[in-house]
């Protein structure tokens, strides 16, 4: 497997990157970790004439957390950095869990969070937790900057809201409200190095009584062309004192909302059943964890 010829650019600053992206337009692809892009090029699914390597641009890298404000994650931050971040584990547990589940040690050392989102696979590991956590993305081009909620950025199977010349530069995660917990779970054909058949993340805030659901977001992955934000689960649970009966009902509602297809990884029927089991599990786990914050 060899690659077609292309020209290689390695900008050092954000401005230089936007200028290149604007000038090269549709001929160019951004190269982050390359774990999707190089593979696609090897398989001749993509044949860009130019690659813009963003790994030398410091502004696109790293995780900064400021108490009371939240976290900012650069698009070119490696999954391995997220996996080992103590702040992420403490404040945004669902994303920490998803980072641990992505690929192998090697893949996590190469892959970036921006690449995972821009690739926009319905089975992507980080999109469900990021959407559940209320993440916004910052998009930039030579013309300027705009912000979008992540659920509006991923618009379909491998489709994003990026226009020509635009890059995803960072993720903005809001500070978790008091008594909030998040968690993530996934299921696939094996325990490691698998593409998810279903994944799911929940972000749950309790009222001061420690039982009543104040805010809840449940997001399903790999059961629709894009991350599926449940409408029915919050409708059933917000304002209610949570118990296993209600959780069972909510899980059934989530299974009803899923729009799974059958493919090589699982049948639609199996996926729907998995949504039921996984939502029951994440809701219970998030409830337990939120009671202990």
């Amino acid at each position, binding site marked *: *497997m*060899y*690659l*077609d*010829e*292309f*020209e*290689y650019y*390695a900008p050092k600053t954000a401005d230089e990157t936007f200028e290149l992206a604007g000038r090269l337009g549709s001929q160019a692809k951004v*190269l982050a970790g*390359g*774990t999707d892009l*190089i*593979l696609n090029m*090897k398989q001749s699914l993509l044949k860009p004439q130019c*690659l813009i*390597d963003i*790994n030398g641009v410091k502004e696109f890298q790293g995780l900064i957390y400021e108490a009371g404000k939240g976290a900012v994650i650069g698009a070119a931050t490696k999954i*391995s950095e997220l996996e080992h971040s103590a702040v992420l584990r403490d404040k945004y547990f669902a994303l920490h869990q998803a980072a641990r589940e992505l*690929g*192998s*040690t*090697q*893949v996590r*050392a*190469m892959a970036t969070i921006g690449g995972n989102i821009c690739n926009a696979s319905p089975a992507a590991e980080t999109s469900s937790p990021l959407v559940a956590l209320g993440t916004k993305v910052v998009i930039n081009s030579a013309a300027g900057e705009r912000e979008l909620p992540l659920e509006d950025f991923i618009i379909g199977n491998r489709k994003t809201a990026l226009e020509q010349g635009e890059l995803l530069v960072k993720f903005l995660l809001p500070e978790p409200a008091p008594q909030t917990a998040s968690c993530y779970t996934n299921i696939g054909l094996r325990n*490691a*190095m698998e593409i998810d058949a279903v994944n799911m993340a929940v972000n749950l805030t309790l009222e001061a009584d420690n039982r009543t659901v104040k805010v809840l977001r449940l997001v399903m992955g790999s059961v629709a062309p894009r991350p599926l934000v449940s409408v029915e689960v919050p409708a059933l649970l917000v304002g209610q004192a949570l118990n296993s009966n209600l959780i069972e009902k909510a899980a059934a509602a989530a299974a009803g909302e899923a729009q799974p297809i059958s493919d090589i990884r699982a049948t639609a029927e199996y996926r729907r059943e998995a949504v039921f089991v996984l939502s029951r599990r994440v809701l219970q786990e998030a409830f337990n964890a939120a009671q202990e914050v």
Partner: protein
Amino acid sequence: MKQQLIQLEINNQLYEIPVTPRDLLVDVIRKKVGITGTKKGCGEGDCGACTVLMDGAPVLSCLTLAITCQGRKIITIEGLADEQGALHPIQQSFLDHGAVQCGFCTPGMILTTKALLDKNPHPDQTSIKRGIAGNICRCTGYKKIVEAIGAAADRIATREVK
């Protein structure tokens, strides 16, 4: 396309190598530098045979463009023994435990182990298995590999060698 000269630091030695942007690191190491311990397996990132260490982190050289590696420190399996040729404790442990069968996965397996033990000097079984989940052994000799890694961790801890 025109070749350009790049500098790569492999096993603490600087090489000046003519490449085109599309040259993959695994091919440059094997064919242009001429050291062949790094193996080419699936070519898709699944098998881990092509693993090398890049600034200490295990990466897949089959999905890495050589041109992106300038200024980075690359270690291949040839760079693990010391100057006198004494094997690294991980290599020795693999030999002692019969963790090498056909040997094709061994270079990648050992480099991934090196990165694992650098981060986590006392991994439990689960951490070992998670750590090498991206290295496939077609002989399926995982039991001995996992044992060899555990023993290597102990050996490094007692001898305090890296």
